[in-house]
């Protein structure tokens, strides 16, 4: 009963045989796509190909209708192999970093077309995402058009950026729990966004999202505090600047606190030029109008 599968599994286990995964469908006739990763969903909607999405993961928060209209397969890092296969997908688009690896391995073993989309919080990364998705869906022309839109967005963003005279130091605060600050250091999407907005990450001697001490906040001397806003909740300037660490920063003197939609800010999808533009406008309210 099991010997064939056992044999195959053992070969896999010991890596003695390179395994090729057959592609079941050509890009043009994929009609049941399972999406693992919110920015992929966002791009497919931007390409107006959402009718092909059979199911998506719980990070697919934009557009908000997506999670209401489509079945969801759970959180992108705890996918169930049988759950995904139960949707009879003919293509799975998975963001780099989806998991667990075992479940993805099982899914690939069944021979369903499986494409991993790279995820990199830079403008180039967004282009690579769009191109990979367009190719997988057989919609290269749509992807090229979207690429042009996004590139135009980044171009006008670059123009806007040149008009920044004095870059401000921005501290991204991910959470403030029990008075403990978690901030965004280097190699985070918050850092990428602060750079796109022509500003300096005040926490760039930290790597990743990390808790930071009150003293380090004072030493970082941010001119602006950047936080995320979600449906129900945004940190208020009153709350933040009442805390001694923040009260001692330059940001407190001008009560500069910017709160933006979390997904828009950190999503790194087609809306990123728009997000960075919004952020520049919020960080530099006195920016001279276009000549």
């Amino acid at each position: 009963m099991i010997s064939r599968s056992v044999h195959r599994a053992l070969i896999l286990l010991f890596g003695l045989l390179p395994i090729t995964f057959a592609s079941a469908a050509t890009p043009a006739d994929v009609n049941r796509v399972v999406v693992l990763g919110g920015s992929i969903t966002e791009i497919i909607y931007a390409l107006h190909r959402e009718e092909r999405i059979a199911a998506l993961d719980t990070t697919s928060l934009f557009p908000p209708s997506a999670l209401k209209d489509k079945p969801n397969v759970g959180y992108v890092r705890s996918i169930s192999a049988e759950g995904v296969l139960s949707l009879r997908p003919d293509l799975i688009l998975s963001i780099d970093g989806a998991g667990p690896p075992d479940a993805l391995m099982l899914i690939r073993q069944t021979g369903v077309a499986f494409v991993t989309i790279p995820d990199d919080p830079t403008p180039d990364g967004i282009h690579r995402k769009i191109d990979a998705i367009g190719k997988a869906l057989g919609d290269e022309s749509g992807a090229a058009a979207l690429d042009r839109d996004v590139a135009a967005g980044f171009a006008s963003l670059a123009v806007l950026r040149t008009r920044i005279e004095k870059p401000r130091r921005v501290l991204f605060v991910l959470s403030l729990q029990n008075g403990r600050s978690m901030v965004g250091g280097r190699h985070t999407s918050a850092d990428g966004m602060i750079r796109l907005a022509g500003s300096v990450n005040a926490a760039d001697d930290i790597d990743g999202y990390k808790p930071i001490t009150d003293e380090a906040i004072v030493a970082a001397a941010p001119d602006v505090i950047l936080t995320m806003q979600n449906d129900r909740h945004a940190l208020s300037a009153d709350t933040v600047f009442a805390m001694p660490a923040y009260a001692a920063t330059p940001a407190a003197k001008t009560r500069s606190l910017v709160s933006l939609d979390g997904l828009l800010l950190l999503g790194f999808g087609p809306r990123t030029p728009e997000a960075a533009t919004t952020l520049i406008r919020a960080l530099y309210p006195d920016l001279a109008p276009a000549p």
Partner: protein
Amino acid sequence: MSRTAIVTLALLCLLLAGTAIASVGLGAVTISPSRILMVLRAALTRDPALDAAHDALILLDIRIPRTLLGFLVGAALAMSGALLQGLFRNPLADPGLIGVSAGAALAAAAAIVLGDRWIPGLLDGPWAVVVLPLAAFGGGLAATSILYGLATRDGRTSVALLLLAGVALGALTGAATGLLVYLSDDRQLRDLTFWSLGSLGGATWGKVAAAAVLILPVLVIVPFLARSLNALALGEADAYYLGVPVQRTKRIMIGLVALAVGSSVALAGPIAFIGIVVPHLLRLTAGADHRIVLPASALLGGSLLVGADILARTLAAPAEVPIGILTAAIGAPFFLWLLLTRAQDIGA
């Protein structure tokens, strides 16, 4: 063997068969019972048409391995729990206590966080499937050996010392795991979190084969230790006069538990409460004789974990609820109830 014992074991075998059938039959993909039989028959005759059939793949490569792995892991955890409770003469002893789980968790966390840093691509390549289990297994064995070394003086193993050293080592590995959590980026952090909840979701025939090699021998050997455990229940000195080579038996038992629990943590992550709940349920219904408790624990532990796994993968289908949440939700209230009703037995 008494009649109650035979009836209990027979009922547990029926339960096992029932959960096995339910587990193979239920899932996100609906496969009719007749189709299941057809697929199984075709698999037996190695019908080549089978390789292309979607539902056959799901049945043979996902569901059946998952069910088998669930039985082996559940049986290993429950039987190890029964063995440790007997060995320590403490109804609260749990496989987590002797450091296996803590050591395994630390090594797995190190593999997740540092592995990628030192050897780029370690957790993405073809070795990914083997790295984490090997690390967890090695960590579990190392922690158990260290504890055993600490608790053994002049060839005698002190159970009290073993428990206390276990608490200390648990705190130490906990701190080290915490340090790794601090060092990890947000992707690794999510890997750590989900790994620590346990899951049978990654079951493959490769893992079933590994479990069969590592766990099955333990399940077969342990029931032969029942007489020694029954003698140990009278105290180590009495057991010695009854002819039990106490020191050697303790060493063998701890080694077997480390092997069984280390393997199960490596293959399915740490799954809590099976090891403490199952032996208790059995002692309440079938008495304290280890000749019954040990094999019955394996049968009930396997059935219970497979049952919990059926819930885990169907409750929110096509998504999956981490199984650790379910075993804790069932196990923790039971454990509290046990504490409150049997307070005098545990000396509280």
